[in-house]
């Protein structure tokens, strides 16, 4: 087993909402999540909007408040407890952990040149001393992201979506981070550009030995890029497994439903799959027992009362469902 870069244990993120002084409610966006992200892996996080995947990603970057449990970062050089991180350590952690956003149109300042956009983290973090040094670093990283070096003097509006996303990636990489959270980084792109950006991310990961957390709602994209996948629903981890295991035999009814919702490229394969009805419940008004029971076609009374625990079977394929074994049985036979 290789080294673990980030280990979350019982991690929760809550936000206080509404109410007066005495009846403050807590919205639990991420609830008791434990996971290990191995060094050098491409870790996928999937789920519908409102499942808490973005919040979990931000908590691991220490950009959302950790209200319960904790997370550890250890890359061999440093070892940080993200819950009780000091100001000095946090400053260093910002260099080591970076975020790539979804919308390359909103993420880049329209009034800065590409060179300045990429150079800004270096200057803010004080990583380079002279302008010449900064320029050299910017050019090096821009070349790695397949940006035309002639374009560094232009402004973002002159670029297409795919080129902008490459600029965002260059900006995230310029501080030589170890850990990158890519939040829906290809969702806004056309298929052809999406393929190009995914190939680029893979390339960079192996060249620079990075660890990625790849947040996406698109399972086919995740299947192609990630080594390990975690499925979230309403702040909980419902299933986690190595990609191939998960896609070969998903165990949780929610994971199965997500698979069957992917539109098939075969025009004759229409509507045979099992569709999920309804929508994800509001996190302020969470169902009792298993959070998924309101939409699960296999829910029984037990599911409504008792919350299932994440079961580990030793092979790295964990699932949190009361009935997964009996539901898998007919398929195995």
């Amino acid at each position, binding site marked *: 087993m290789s080294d673990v870069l980030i280990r979350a244990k019982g991690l929760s993120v809550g936000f206080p909402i509404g109410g007066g002084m005495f009846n403050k409610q807590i919205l639990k966006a991420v609830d008791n999540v434990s996971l290990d992200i191995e060094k050098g892996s491409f870790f996928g996080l999937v789920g519908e909007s409102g499942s808490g995947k973005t919040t979990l990603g931000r908590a691991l970057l220490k950009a959302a408040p950790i209200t319960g449990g904790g997370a550890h970062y250890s890359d061999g050089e440093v070892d940080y407890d993200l819950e009780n991180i000091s100001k000095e350590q946090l400053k260093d952690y910002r260099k080591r952990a970076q975020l790539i956003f979804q919308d390359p149109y909103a993420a880049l300042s329209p009034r800065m040149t590409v060179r300045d956009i990429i150079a800004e983290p270096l200057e803010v973090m004080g990583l380079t001393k002279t302008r010449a040094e900064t320029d050299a670093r910017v050019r090096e990283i821009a070349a790695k992201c397949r940006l035309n070096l002639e374009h560094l003097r232009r402004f973002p509006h002159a670029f297409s979506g795919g080129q902008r996303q490459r600029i965002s990636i260059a900006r995230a990489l310029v501080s030589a981070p170890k850990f990158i959270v890519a939040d829906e980084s290809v969702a806004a792109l056309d298929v052809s550009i999406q393929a190009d950006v995914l190939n680029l991310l893979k390339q960079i990961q192996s060249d620079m030995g990075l660890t990625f957390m790849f947040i996406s709602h698109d399972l*086919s994209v995740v299947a*192609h890029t990630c080594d390990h996948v975690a499925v979230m629903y309403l702040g909980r981890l419902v299933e986690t497994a190595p990609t191939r295991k998960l896609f070969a035999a998903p165990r949780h009814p929610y994971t199965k439903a997500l698979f069957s919702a992917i539109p098939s490229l075969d025009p004759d394969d229409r509507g045979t799959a099992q569709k999920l009805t309804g929508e994800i419940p509001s996190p302020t008004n969470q169902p009792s027992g298993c959070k998924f029971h309101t939409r699960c076609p296999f829910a029984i009374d037990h599911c409504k009362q008792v919350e299932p625990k994440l079961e580990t079977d030793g092979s790295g394929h964990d699932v949190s469902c009361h009935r997964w074994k009996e539901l898998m049985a007919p398929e195995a036979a």
Partner: protein
Amino acid sequence: MTALIDVKNLTLKFRTDEGLITAVDNVSFSLNKGEVMGLVGESGSGKSVTAKALMHLNAKNAVYSPESRITLHNDKGPVDVLSLRTPRELNIVRGGAVSMIFQEPMASFAPAITIGKQMVEQLQLHGNYTKEQAKKISVEMLDRVGISDAARRFDQYAFELSGGMRQRAMIAMALSTKPKLLIADEPTTALDVTIQAQVIDLMKDLVSEFHMGIVFITHDLGVVAQTADKVNVMYLGRMIEEGPVREVIRNPKHPYTQGLLAALPKLEDLDAPLTPVPGDIPSPLERPSGCVFHTRCSQIVGDVCRHTEPSEKSIDTTHKVSCHIYDEVSA
């Protein structure tokens, strides 16, 4: 099969500070009643502009060429869409016989007016209804598209609904005037896969129930495979391939269509590399000469691609492609 809409030689340019920009270049297609057409292409390929032309809805700086013809076959006889001028005349293609749903339902509803009021308003604009009748139709329609507790939702504002609900309300509103043609511009792109599957099912049901034609604009070929009867692929304002959905997806002829399919991640084969179409779509200000796709094409047959615009060739009676690879086939 009765024709619903006929588009002939549609050419559309926009007058801008930098000169005339060609958005749609000599595009022809037709759609029958009860048929779903998928309109596919990258951003900038001209799909939305083409669809908006069907409603004569493009901005003031749009210039249609004199040969452009769009004919809508309405109950009371054919309508020449591009000759409509006054708002009263245009009513027929703007919410009357033709309706449109958009990608971003939050941006399409007025935020400070209830959903119900907006639905009643448009019903009264297009038909002779009293307020009570219009309300009844609206609530029934909201119920029909699967919005629970429709009477209560009627009095709510767009921000009170979830994304999937909003898109359903949008569909309900577009269909309440019983249009003959529905234009759906990326209606599921902003939705989760699970909700997308629900909306696709709903649209399929509605086609069979109301027997309308749908122009479904999307860049997702999976969605096309699941919804459309036929597919038209656009690139830089040109219609480069068209045919029945099975033909185009299983047996794509144009290198661009082949490229779009190769770029898709496939669940059946996780080891297959993702192959992007090289390069980016050129700016419409720098339209390539000859075949507009030659700057990114990996199967160029010769100088002819750079100099001569390919004409449309028939692979069979329904499957057509514009590419020089097939020059000898038709010769």
